[in-house]
């Protein structure tokens, strides 16, 4: 067994959190709260560094406009004063607006158009045909309006549409299950990859069972 204090700390923290698997207990609770305290402190320190480099340094260099985000940031605290609480909506709107803008611009090309383009591959063999048809089928799972079961007096076109969409979305669900199975299967490796270093810590570094 090692005499290194650091390894001991690491091992105890690891065991403490693992003890939850047995059942929730005081040792786990201690580690949980210690961990929460540390991670919050870590985040605040990182956030502070950010504010310093992105705001305060720039402000000191004469970039006066940087006052705006600082004021907006401070306004977040307005919600502690019921009368002024509405002021905190300004910074929230800013956060939400920019987040929306940034994600939209990125997602149209990579998430939609590029995906459609990538599906336009020449059908030369069974695999390419399967990919194309299965993509269409899986997409129809997400049809919410088109192809709903017709009600009342309807034409044969609507009934045909309903039949096509429901058949396609039935197949689509199976395709999604295959996808989920495949993703699940390929994840096992990841989870093991996380567990192995823990075992190495406990059995190699701590009690020296592994060489």
């Amino acid at each position, binding site marked *: 067994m090692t005499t290194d204090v650091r390894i001991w700390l690491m091992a105890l923290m690891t065991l403490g959190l693992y003890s939850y698997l047995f059942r929730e207990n005081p040792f786990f609770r201690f580690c949980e709260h210690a961990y929460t305290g540390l991670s919050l402190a870590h985040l605040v320190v990182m956030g502070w560094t950010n504010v310093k480099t992105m705001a305060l340094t720039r402000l000191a260099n004469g970039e006066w406009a940087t006052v705006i985000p600082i004021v907006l940031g401070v306004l977040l605290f307005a919600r502690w004063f019921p009368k002024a609480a509405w002021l905190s909506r300004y910074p929230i709107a800013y956060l939400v607006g920019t987040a929306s803008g940034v994600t939209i611009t*990125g997602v149209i090309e990579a998430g939609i158009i590029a995906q459609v383009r990538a599906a336009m591959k020449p059908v030369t063999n069974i695999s390419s045909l399967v990919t194309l048809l299965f993509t269409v089928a899986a997409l129809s799972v997400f049809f919410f309006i088109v192809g709903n079961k017709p009600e009342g007096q309807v034409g044969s076109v609507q009934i045909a549409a309903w039949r096509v969409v429901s058949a396609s979305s039935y197949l689509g669900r199976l395709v999604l299950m295959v996808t989920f199975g495949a993703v699940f299967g390929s994840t096992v490796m990841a989870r093991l*990859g996380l567990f192995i270093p823990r075992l190495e810590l406990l059995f190699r570094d701590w009690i020296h069972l592994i060489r």
Partner: protein
Amino acid sequence: MYKFTQQWLIWGLLSIVVLLPLVKPIGLPVGYAAETEAAFKFIDNLPKGSITMMVCEVAPSNAGEIWPAAIAIARHHLEKGHKVVISTFIPDGIMYSLELGKLLEKEYGAKYGEDYIVLPYVAGRETALAAVADNIRGVYKEDQFKQDLNNLPLWTRIQSIKDFAVVSCYTSSDDTWWLVRHIWGKYQVPCISSTVSVATPDSLTYYKNGQLVGMLGGVRGAAYYEQRLGKPGMATKSMDAQSAGHIYLLVLMLIGNVSYWYSRRSQGRRSEG
């Protein structure tokens, strides 16, 4: 109570099964991975002196899987005489960025500021990465050690993201997606991604679409890269334990189904009788 003992049995056996190969390695081979080969070849063919960026989104949570890949590619860069700029967009990443730098100094005598730079953590995830892609000099003024970046010779060679020969990321999150969106999508800078295996199928699609020049999927990708580089490391070592864990889960699945069918059959009989 019954439920809990059954669980502990399942979990206890799992730990033992994974531990055994670590105590006594078997040495199973690693299979061929075309996408990792592509990444290896791409980096191998870059000219000496190329500037590269490593987006080190490594955290304790994912280090088991992607840290070996980051080390393998960093070593490859230095062996080929490339310059490395290390950046990160998660708070924990900075710890690993610093460690990566230390490793390069120790193993290759890399000089800070000339051969590699460690950039500070920037908050904002995708928005931050997008900002770096659009205007890298606007985002970074100082390095992680609070020095003015303009005093570093390597930094003076960088004006925009287009000065990088390749950008690689090590991530358990959507960084691959962001790289593809903002760095490849907007500026056509080649990207390589090393992802945890959960994200591998996803990233594989980007590779197939031609949006990535190569990728390393989980420990297996890293193990393959290590072997290709001729420097077996952490990833190669843990592959045996990986296999054992997989087999255990498969057996568990089998037993689960057999017992399920058995209990259903006996229930069926009981209801008949």
